[in-house]
Every structure is written in structure tokens, then in C-alpha cells.
């Protein structure tokens, strides 16, 4: 079933909270609507679903990769040139730790930056339905509505205090 996107622009946070409640009552699932804001409101302010994320996986995987590469460089090169000096162990752990620490950090940093871009679904060159007033303090409720429910949804948004409606 084709869906269209409709955006209601609000000034008051209370109206947005009411809109979320009404949308749920109207049969919309949590994934069918989203809140847009220029300010990071505390999670759950509008009764919206608390967003889950997997960002923590990225630094973890990056750190493991960085550590492995650093281990490969340090241990691999020493094992490739097996020269025992003064009866000491072939692998000298303390110097290796420095490179491995830096490798781990480097991997974690690069993966975190990539993770933020990936998890934020960026870059997205087509912003879709949007209103520039959102970064000025207004709030947006973005609804993915079936074509036949579009009129009803628009009416719902107006009833809950939307100052402006945009559709696509």
C-alpha cells in the first residue's frame, strides 16, 4: 500500500505529545511517525518510542580490529625476524602494548565516526518533507500515512494544534 508523508508543524511541546497519543489511537504504529526538533528534548518527552541504537557496537568492533592489526604488526614482525637477544622472550610485551593501545584507540575512533554517520542514516541528500522553522524552536510531527487515510491524518494534525501542514 503506497504511503505519503505528511508533516505537522507545532509550536507547543504539549500539542506534540497529544498528537502522538492521538496517532496511536488512530491505529498508527510507532514506526509510522517521527518527531523532528531543533532541541534535544529528554527521551520520551512526547510519549514517543525510545529510540534504540547500536552505536556501541561500532567502537567495540573498531577497537577489536585496531587491536588485532596492531598485534599482527608487532608480533608478526618479531616472529618474522626471530632473533633472541640476551635470552629474553621473543615477544617483548611492554613495547607492543603501546602500539596495541594506539591501534585499539585508532580503530575505535574511526569506527565511532563511521558509526555515527551510519546510525544517523547520513548523508541523506533528500530531506523529504521538512520545515526550516524546526531548527528555530518549532517541532514537527512526520507521519507516513496511507493514501486513503491522508485526509483524516491531516485533520488530526490540525485538531491537535498544527500551525502548518506539508505533504509529499
Amino acid at each position, binding site marked *: 500500500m503506497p504511503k505519503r508523508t505528511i508533516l505537522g508543524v507545532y509550536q507547543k511541546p504539549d500539542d506534540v505529545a497529544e498528537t502522538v497519543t492521538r496517532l496511536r489511537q488512530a491505529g498508527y504504529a510507532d514506526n509510522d511517525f*517521527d*518527531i*523532528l*526538533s*531543533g*532541541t*534535544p*528534548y*529528554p*527521551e520520551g518527552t512526547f510519549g*514517543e518510542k*525510545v*529510540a534504540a*541504537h547500536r*552505536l*556501541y557496537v561500532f*567502537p567495540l568492533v573498531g577497537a577489536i580490529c585496531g587491536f588485532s592489526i596492531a598485534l599482527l604488526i608487532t608480533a608478526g*614482525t*618479531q616472529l*618474522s*625476524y626471530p*632473533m633472541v*637477544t640476551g635470552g*629474553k622472550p621473543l615477544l*617483548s610485551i*611492554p*613495547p607492543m602494548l*603501546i*602500539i596495541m*593501545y*594506539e*591501534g585499539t*584507540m*585508532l580503530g*575505535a*575512533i*574511526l569506527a*565511532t*565516526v563511521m*558509526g*555515527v554517520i551510519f*546510525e*544517523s*542514516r*547520513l*548523508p*541523506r*541528500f533528500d*530531506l*523529504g518533507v*521538512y520545515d*526550516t522553522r*524546526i*531548527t*528555530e*524552536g518549532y517541532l*514537527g510531527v*512526520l507521519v507516513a500515512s496511507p493514501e486513503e487515510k491522508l485526509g483524516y491524518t491531516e485533520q488530526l494534525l490540525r485538531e491537535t494544534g498544527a500551525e502548518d501542514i506539508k505533504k509529499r
Partner: protein
Amino acid sequence: MQHAIHSRHVNPRPHLPETPAALTRDVLGKFSRPQGTGLLVVSGILVLLGIAGFAMRLSGGFSDRGAWGYYAAIYVFLLSTAAAAPILAVATRLTKGYWRKPLVRMAEMFATVGILSVAMLIPILGVLPPIEGRTTFWMAWPDHHWYPQMSLVAGVLGLTICGFGLLFISAKPDLAAARDHVPGAGRGFGAWLATGWAGTPHQWKIVRQGVTYLGIFYLMMLVGVHFVVSVEMAITLVPGWRDPIFPAYHAVSSLQAGLAMLVLTLGILRANGYKEYLALDQFWNPGKLLMSFSMLWFYFWWSGFIIFWYGRTAPEEGVMMTVMFGPTFGAFIVAFFCSFAVPLLMLMWNPVRVSIKGPVIASAVILVGNLFDRIRIYEGAFLVTQQGGHFVEHIPATRMPDVADLLVAVGVVGGIMFIYLIGMRIIPLLSLWELKEGQLLTETRHILGAEVVAIGKPE
């Protein structure tokens, strides 16, 4: 304390526009019409002078390590100040310090200076010897020859990438605001970086988490870099120098200098268009930290020094003479007074600490102290040309800076200003989203006759 504040008629808190729309207009107005064009030109000229000084130094080749001592000192000064300045943003974010909001971006903007850190490291890699001929913990296996250089490159590069990542992610919502409201060319390249930002709860959560992660990594990386730099560029060049406290001293003195660099910058910005955003709170709170770091400077220096002073073995005497009482004795005295004694004696007084000028002046003194501290360490260490041995056999003579050294120093100061000024033309210098969050979560209330600020901390 209240008396001290009121007696100066200074509002402790910033006076921000009252609505999000007004705040957005004001912040983006400052962004689209940046000040300091004259300073940008002057700093550009200083950079050119620095490049000329670098060319003069380069013409002498890499073989004379002593000639590169001041260059190394200035380089480490750069790492200790500009590279450490974003730490205040990181630390106050992690501890949820409310007063940070107007100054976090000003601190993070110093991450851009990482470009200069990477560029200036390149000749040092050529000047530093491989592991042969110096006391080092790297084992003398064929594959280890260039590990000191490798660890330096990995550390500085990692720190720079982390800094840029931190700045980019933290600025993304504000770049979106610039995209939406700054007309034409004024929105700049930065707005392009915000492509796709709509401000969904999911995006906000990712930004918050990303900034937290990268902030922690930045702190971890900075400490690691100071360990590697102090070991590879100082300790291992001086025969007989074994001091586990020194890398910690190096990191702590860097945090002190980074904070001082930021407070001095805040003072300059307050006088140039950011007065409403930078009030007493933004100077008084870092002032307390500066005083603590001044005491920590002494504690860490003393902890290392007392072992050498009472040990008095030949290696210990050699180290003391090389980096404290020998060729760089004058620099050591200046460092001692400007990093510890003078700022502590200034900031221990309430009227000085609870003011705007006091912490700014103390910061300028600390920066002078840190520069001379790095000179006494790195100029001293680079002057030692002895290969191997268990102690410094001949204490080197004092070498005064030449024209090339002075030009490089001027160039680095110019470079920091130049890159910072370019940065504030690409990214807003105020963290708009955090200021708006502050507006949302802050309320002034009255308890009987007193006026208090109630701050919401949702997490």
C-alpha cells in the same frame, strides 16, 4: 561568595536571548558575520614568517639534533595547549556541568589545530634517532628500529582524527541550523556537512552517544600521546633518565596549559562580541580548576624531583643538570614560577578567582610557564648528543634561540590563531543545540527572598 560576586556587579550567568528563535538568530548572526578579519590577515602573515623560519631550520638538515631543540619544544607546547584545550568540553560534558554550555564549542574548535600538530611532527620524525644509541624500552630487533616514530605518528594522528570527529559530530545539529537559516554563501561548507539532519529523536540520541564516546577516546588518546611524546622525545634521549612519574607530570601540565589556553581565548572572545554568552561562571569555574592544576603541577614535579635530588647518583645528577639546573636553568625558573607559584598565589584569593580578568591573566602566565617548561625539557634533551652510556657525561652548554627558532615560535602562535579563525567561519562558535537544551531545562525560581536556578538533568 555571593558578596564577592555582587560587589563587582557582575552577573554570574550568561544573559542569553529568551526564546529559541531569538537565540538561533543571534548565534547564526555571529556565525554569518564573524569578527576578526584583521586578525586573520595578521595571523596569516605570522604563519608565513613561521614557514620562513622552518625553511631556515630545514636548510641545516636533520643531523644536528641540538639545532631542533627549540622547534621540538614549540611543537610540544602546541600539543600541550591547543591539543589539550578540548578536554574541558569533554570533561564538563561527562560530568554534566551546566556552565559549560556557552564554551564547549570554543573548546572543541581547538581540535582543528590538530592539522598543525600533524604537519609539524613530520620533520621531528627525521630528527629523532631510531632506537640504536639511546636508552629505550624498545628491544633491539631489526623490526623495531622505527617504533618510536611509529608510535608518535599513530598517537598524534589518532588524536587529530578523534578531535575532528568530535567537532564534526557535535556541530552537526548547528550546521543544520546554518543550512536552514543562513542565506547564500554565508552558510558555508559546514552546512553541506549537515546534509540529511532532520532532528529525529534517533539522530539526537546518536549525536549524544557519539560525542560521549569520542570525548572519552580523546581524553584517553591525549594521555597516551603525552606518554609517547615525553618518552620518545625526552626521556630516551638522555642517558640515565629513568622516571616513571615524568609522563604523568607531562600529561597533567598539558591539561593545565590546555585549560589556560581556553580561558585566555574565552577572555579574548568576551571582549570581541561574545560578552552575553561568557559571564562570570565561564571564568570562575575554570579558575578553580586552574588553581587545582597549579598545585598538581608542583605535586607531580616534586614527586619526580625529590627522588633525583636525594638519589644523587651520576645518572640522576646528569638528568637534573640537563633539564633543570644546566643549559636550561633560566627556562626552568620561569616555568616554576609561571606554572606554579604565580598562578597559585593569584588564584588563591577570592577577589581574583571570582572574577573575569583574574583567571584570564593567570592563564596567560601559565601559558608562558608551559612554553618555558617545554623549552627546559626538550631543548635540554635535544642538546644531549651522547650516544649510549649510563649517564650524561658532558653537560651541554646553553644554546640561545636563533632567528629560525623565533620565527617558528611566532608561526606556531599565528598558526593556532589562523586555523581557529578559519574554523569559526565554517562551524558556529557557540553550541546552539546545547544552549537551547539549557534554555529548555533551566528555570529561575524564588525560594523566599532568594533567587535560585533550577536545572533539569534528565539522565
